[in-house]
């Protein structure tokens, strides 16, 4: 279900914004418009459809217009043109009082530099949205404590923000955003002012909260790894234009243009790509009643040291490993049914490459990728995994 529908959203800063829009529609670039009119085309004709419960990331470098886009969603910046629809309600047409109401109830926001009120306690900060709504003091405090509990700061209600570290301050910022129970959380580069380890913690916290709370989140970042890590879908912005919208793996697999390709070239692929993108069909599988001799011959011919054995439904029974099969042949065991071992690793289609690498290190047999019922979907041989990690685009493309 579409929660937030954005159409033709455009912002021109400068003395004559309307002229800027006209030039944009004639296809002029940001640079040309600036040189001709002195107007800055910050955001150009952005269309977005953000689904309910989705964590939607808007990514771009500084100057790409990402902060302007998010501020037009709650009209901290007035759009020059375009529409913003939230649950079918036209945000861009609300009067001041209606807009305040929507901001109080439906849209909350988390800021890059936390933007806490230094003269209010942590609890008062977290309760600010409720105070503005006119919620009574006792309930306000109670709900603030609840929100602070979810971010792990329930015991710091009476501290002042400057007594907390940066990471903790942003937790307060997050609690303030959560306390109003708004459907949509706008997050403007919320973790970019934090140092890397804290940033990682906060990303984990957000991912965890999101799986519980299931809010619709619009998340701004300039960090592609962060975008890939958190985003259900990612929108890449450049010079105010949307360049590409898609899931992380889609964008890495299939960059829309040279710009995106360059952008994703240094992303940590192991944390974005999943087993699904690199697994391939096993060259061969055997059944439990296949003869020991045949299996050993096949292993010999293919210089392989193990092969998966499946039942009739395609579920894995075990691995026939070369040494066990050879032993069985010497002992004159006719089928491989009793020679199987379960010394193999399994993964699901959404296991990250980084996790696959850990599995592959311990197991010589290719990793089995299975569905919920344990059926074999494909395998990831170790060499194949290493090739994918080393940024070999052929591997991904082939799979």
């Amino acid at each position, binding site marked *: 279900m579409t929660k937030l529908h954005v159409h033709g959203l455009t912002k021109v800063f400068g003395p004559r914004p309307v002229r800027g829009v006209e030039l944009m529609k004639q296809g002029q670039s940001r640079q040309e418009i600036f040189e001709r009119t002195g107007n800055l085309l910050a955001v150009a004709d952005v269309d977005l459809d953000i689904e309910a419960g989705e964590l939607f990331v808007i990514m771009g470098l500084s100057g790409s217009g990402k902060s302007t886009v998010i501020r037009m969603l709650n009209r901290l910046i007035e759009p020059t043109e375009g529409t913003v629809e939230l649950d079918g309600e036209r945000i861009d047409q609300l009067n001041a009082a209606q807009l305040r109401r929507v901001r109080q109830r439906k849209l909350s*926001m988390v800021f890059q530099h936390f933007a806490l*009120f230094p003269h209010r306690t942590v609890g008062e900060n977290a309760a600010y949205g409720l105070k503005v709504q006119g919620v009574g003091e006792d309930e306000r405090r109670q709900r603030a404590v609840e929100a602070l509990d979810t971010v792990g700061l329930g015991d710091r209600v009476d501290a002042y923000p*400057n007594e907390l570290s940066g990471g903790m301050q942003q937790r307060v910022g997050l609690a303030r955003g959560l306390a109003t129970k708004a459907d949509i959380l706008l997050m403007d580069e919320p973790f970019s002012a934090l140092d890397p380890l804290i940033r990682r913690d906060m990303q984990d916290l957000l991912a965890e909260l999101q799986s519980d709370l299931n809010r619709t989140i619009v998340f701004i970042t300039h960090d592609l790894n962060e975008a890939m890590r958190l985003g259900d879908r990612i929108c890449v912005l450049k010079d105010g234009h949307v360049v590409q919208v898609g899931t992380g793996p889609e964008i890495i697999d299939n960059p829309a243009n040279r710009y995106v390709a360059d952008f994703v070239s240094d992303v940590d692929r192991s944390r974005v790509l999943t087993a699904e993108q690199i697994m391939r069909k096993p060259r061969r599988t055997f059944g439990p009643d296949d003869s020991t001799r045949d299996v050993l011959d096949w292993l010999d011919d293919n210089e392989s040291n193990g092969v998966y054995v499946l039942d009739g439904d395609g579920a894995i029974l075990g691995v026939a490993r070369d040494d066990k099969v050879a032993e069985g042949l010497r002992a004159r065991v006719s089928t491989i049914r009793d020679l199987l071992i379960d010394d193999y690793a399994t993964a699901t289609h959404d296991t990250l490459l980084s996790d696959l690498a850990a599995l592959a290190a311990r197991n010589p047999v290719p990793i089995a990728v299975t569905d919920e019922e344990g059926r074999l979907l494909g395998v990831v041989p170790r060499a194949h995994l290493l090739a994918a990690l080393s940024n070999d685009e052929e591997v991904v493309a082939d799979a």
Partner: protein
Amino acid sequence: MREHYLAQALFDLPVGDYAEAAEDWLTTTFSWLFGTISDLVAWIVEQAEWLLTEPPVLLTLALFVVLAAVATRSWKLPAFTAVTFYFVYAMGIYIEMMETLALVAVATVLAVAIGIPFGVWAARSDRVSSTLKPILDFMQTMPSFIYLLLAVVFFGIGRVPGVMSALIFSMPPAVRLTELGIRQVDHEVVEAAEAFGARPREVLTGVQLPLARASIMAGVNQVIMLALSMVVIAGLGGAGGLGALVVRAVTSMNIGLGIEGGLGVVVLAIFLDRVTAAFGRENRSRRGGDTQVDEQSTTQAEDAGSDVDEQTRPVAAS
């Protein structure tokens, strides 16, 4: 011949004549207004004076010591206050100092009550800000004696012209530092309040004014110092208090009286400065750490404010 007159008209503008004509017109047309203002201000000053001079000296002195202690939370200023105020009392000019304090207090309250709203308005509108700036420059650079002259013309002699000239002379820092304080509040923090749906009034009173507090208090401090210097000058216009002492000393070449009056001004100036400065800093000590806002406004207040050197200025004036 005609060219001669033209040249005279062009190069010999009788601005003074115009000003006098304007003054004539104003005093006759608005005499009721000036009369009302005059009566009102006189009444307020009388109440303030009564409050400060009527109770026993020991009681008021004790209250000042307590005020100093509450403001600074240290023993130094209270001790200083006790010693110096007693010293003033022993010189026999305590009542005069209280009269001067009453004038300063009334002028300050009025200047702040008018100045802060203008500062808020200027902070919200660039156009208002650029309109006010030259007016404030004018108010601060016009020699202070001229205000006294104008005030005497409109309000007669006595305390009222003292208050009115001090009001005009001391208001600019209240406007400027309020505007500065509000403008330097972190933009993102203001956005945060707006993003949660706060009304403009809630943003102002709940976020901008509290965070501009240090800067505004620096402005109030300067208002007080300027008002004190003006009120002493207003002794020339019959405002009484220490100003009257100083004027009498100057006109009769009485060194002893001059030194005594001057010391009274110094004592009062130091007391007022330290107490108001402490109230401006109070935020910082309560939150137990430096915040950006506080640091910035204190340093910028020193740069942006008028040229008052808190201790020397009142003395120089006297």
